[in-house]
């Protein structure tokens, strides 16, 4: 081949490559995915991972515009955006209970067609733990209709201060008073039931001037706390766990229209469960008497060093181990949420699942849907799920959380796999907010000492029966 011909061929190749690049550039589009999310670490981490690592397989330039909305306002803001018709968001992080309301309203897009056409994606979803998948993805609950994917799955766990619990003098005093060992190691804390939780509450209820760990306290100190707030679902999520552990039940949407509320919601088991939940409140910080002890307040009190144990969502755990935001960062350990000891000695740990799915909106155009699905597939890919977990998030994908290195990412990850098996969810129906607000009000009256457990559950059952009959969900 002569030099001239070789040069000619090189030029031709270069020109072809340039033309290809130019053609690709011409076809590549700028696509923006606008997403409403609650403002907390799991969504902040997601945004950072996207900005740092995401390359759209389509070649398009995809931008993720995230609207971080404070948790207390999140439902109101998203609801207002969707119902106003502004069609601002392509995607959103949605609480699982909102699925029914927003699907029936025509806002959330059904995803079965996309999943059916993509066996790889279907396999990813099949590899999820059924509890978060059913809670986050299906409507009607546990049906075949898929509407969402896990963004941040979450469960309730115990936050504990090892410095307080493992202190020799406290250990000795507890042993002397109760004849039992004060749980100190994570294994001992894992085995803790509500009775031990109560004893710890009694034991560590100290006033300013009393000693804690051999030093006089400057402020009151408390042994235990869990959510008991009137706002949003900040008592229901804890009480549901008690009810299920006692063998009681909430109104079961999967049994509609034959399942009843009367007789179920206010069953003797449910009443015993609520009485147990209420009994423990006397050992908690006094803010519980105001109906204001929500998940944010218990988290703050724990990080301020005012409680020895706190039951809260994993989503707050990152700030508990950060010395900049937590006074107890160097001593915090994590264990399973306590449960109810059964007659056979086992512990029932049923709990209400937390966390949120992603959803796509019905008005997203074809390109946006394709890019959103590619983004979700990337998010659910093992590498990204590992990166998310390494920064404090959680994964619902078995292959990821069963990987031995998963438990080493964060101290609470050791509770994850076992905890998932005990999760249930409630109320994906459109009437969920009316059910929730009335139940929260009634539980709040019980929490603040204005009515007993039986009256509370009778009121809730009567209201739910009436509302669900009107809605045709109970016949």
């Amino acid at each position, binding site marked *: 081949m002569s030099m001239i011909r070789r040069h000619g061929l090189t030029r031709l190749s270069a020109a072809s490559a340039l033309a290809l690049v130019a053609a690709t550039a011409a076809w590549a589009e700028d696509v923006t995915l606008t997403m409403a999310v609650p403002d907390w670490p799991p969504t902040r981490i997601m945004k950072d991972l996207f900005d740092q690592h995401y390359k759209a397989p389509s070649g398009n330039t995809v931008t993720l515009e995230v609207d971080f909305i404070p948790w207390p306002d999140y*439902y*109101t803001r998203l*609801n*207002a955006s*969707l*119902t*106003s*018709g502004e069609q601002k968001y392509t995607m959103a992080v949605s609480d699982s209970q909102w699925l029914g*309301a*927003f699907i*029936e*309203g*025509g*806002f959330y897009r059904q995803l079965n067609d996309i999943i059916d056409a993509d066996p790889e994606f279907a396999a990813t979803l099949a590899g999820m733990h059924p509890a978060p998948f059913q809670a986050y993805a299906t409507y009607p609950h546990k049906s075949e209709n898929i509407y969402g994917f896990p963004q941040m799955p979450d469960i309730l766990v115990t936050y504990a201060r090892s410095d307080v619990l493992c202190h020799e003098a406290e250990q000795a005093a507890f042993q002397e008073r109760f004849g039992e060992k004060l749980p100190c190691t994570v294994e001992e804390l894992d085995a803790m039931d509500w009775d031990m939780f109560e004893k710890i509450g009694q034991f560590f209820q100290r006033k300013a001037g009393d000693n804690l760990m051999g030093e006089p306290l400057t*402020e*009151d100190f408390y042994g235990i706390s869990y959510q008991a707030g*009137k*706002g949003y679902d900040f008592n229901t999520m804890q009480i549901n766990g008690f009810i299920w552990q006692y063998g009681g039940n909430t109104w079961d949407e999967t049994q509609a229209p034959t399942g009843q509320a009367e007789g179920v919601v206010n069953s003797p088991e449910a009443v015993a469960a609520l009485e147990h939940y209420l009994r423990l409140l006397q050992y908690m*910080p*006094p*803010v519980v*008497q*105001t*109906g*204001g002890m929500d998940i944010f307040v218990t988290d703050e*009190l724990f990080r301020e060093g*005012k409680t020895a144990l706190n039951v809260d969502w994993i989503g707050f755990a990152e700030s508990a181990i950060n010395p900049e935001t937590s006074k107890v960062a160097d001593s915090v350990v994590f264990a399973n949420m306590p449960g109810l000891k059964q007659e056979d000695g086992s512990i029932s740990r049923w709990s209400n699942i937390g966390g949120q799915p992603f959803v796509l909106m019905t008005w997203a155009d074809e390109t946006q849907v394709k890019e959103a699905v590619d983004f979700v597939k990337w998010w659910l890919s093992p590498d990204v799920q590992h990166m998310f977990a390494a920064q404090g998030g959680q994964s619902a994908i078995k292959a990821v959380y069963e990987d031995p290195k998963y438990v080493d990412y964060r101290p609470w990850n050791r509770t994850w796999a076992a905890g998932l098996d005990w999760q249930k969810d409630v109320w994906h129906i*459109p009437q969920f*907010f*009316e059910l929730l*607000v009335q139940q929260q*009000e009634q539980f*709040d009256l019980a929490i*603040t*000492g*204005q009515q007993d457990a039986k009256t509370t559950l009778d009121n809730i059952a009567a209201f739910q029966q009436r509302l669900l009959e009107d809605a045709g969900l109970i016949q």
Partner: protein
Amino acid sequence: MTVATLPEQPPAGLFAPSWRNWRLALAFAVVAIPLAIVALPAGPAFWASFAAAGLVALTAVVNAWGRYTGGLLVAPAIAVLVMMNIFPLLWSLGLSFFAYRADRQTMNFVALRNYERALTDPVVWDRLTTTALFVVLTVTTQMVIGFLLALLFSKQFPLRRYLLILVLTPMMLSFVAVGAFFRYYYDPSFGLVSQVVNLFADERFVLISTPPGAVAAIVIADAWMWSPFVMLLVLAGLVSVPKHLYEAAAVDRVPAWRRFWFITFPYVKGLLLLALLFRTIEAFKLFDVVFILTDGGQRTETIALYVYRQAIQFNKTSEAAALSYILLFTVIVLTNLYLHLANRRSQGAG
């Protein structure tokens, strides 16, 4: 007369195609807008209706140009008023006769059923009772404190001006800031109130642990914010009292309470009643402080908070609209009753 100077305009027939023919544009809009709403999807229907309304406005402006200058000058203000106040009011009034939810696309005419449901709902009456309690307590507290503050600041004393600015500051804060401030103030663990009371008491003091305590917490927060408003109005009345009346009373050795009752009070009575009217209407709408301090807990949910839940959280748009109109009607009746009584008193006094 001004009218005589207007240029003569040939009377336009209804169907004469002209930029001045606003009647034709209006007739077109009246037909086109409902057609667009029925026949087109929501987006195009909105823009088609917007264009038709714009055409009516344009022809009206062209028609009025050079002839009704005064009307043209106030037209923008009236347009804003219509768009921001009157149209939403009429729209929500219309909605109140339908079964409509913001999260659904269906709308059925139900006549007065939403009103009937609201008026027969025991929860509504319970929230109205709570609201009435707050109206009485907050307004009474504010009137008393505001009046006393005004009496204090009507005198001259060192640092009066600076103290006056400080006292007026709460009124200028946002409701949310006041709510958040008092939330921390009452907090049983960190709050100042608990810390101070605990110096003298053995048990931890939690103000919002009972319904009366929660009511007191809300009344105090609201009074802190709005007593300065009452003070400001009363102070204006106090400084208008002629000094020679007090001098004459002093010469006659009139007792202090008679001086107050026969000299001071008649001068401030009108402004005091005005403050009473404003504060009563506002107290009827009490929302923010309750929302932030108790979220309606401890039986403190007011009717405004209840309407918010129905409209914004439950998406029961038309039911909330009906309830809002019942409240509006109640406030209007109360206001007119008050004005009637005030007029009768002043006429009687005259």
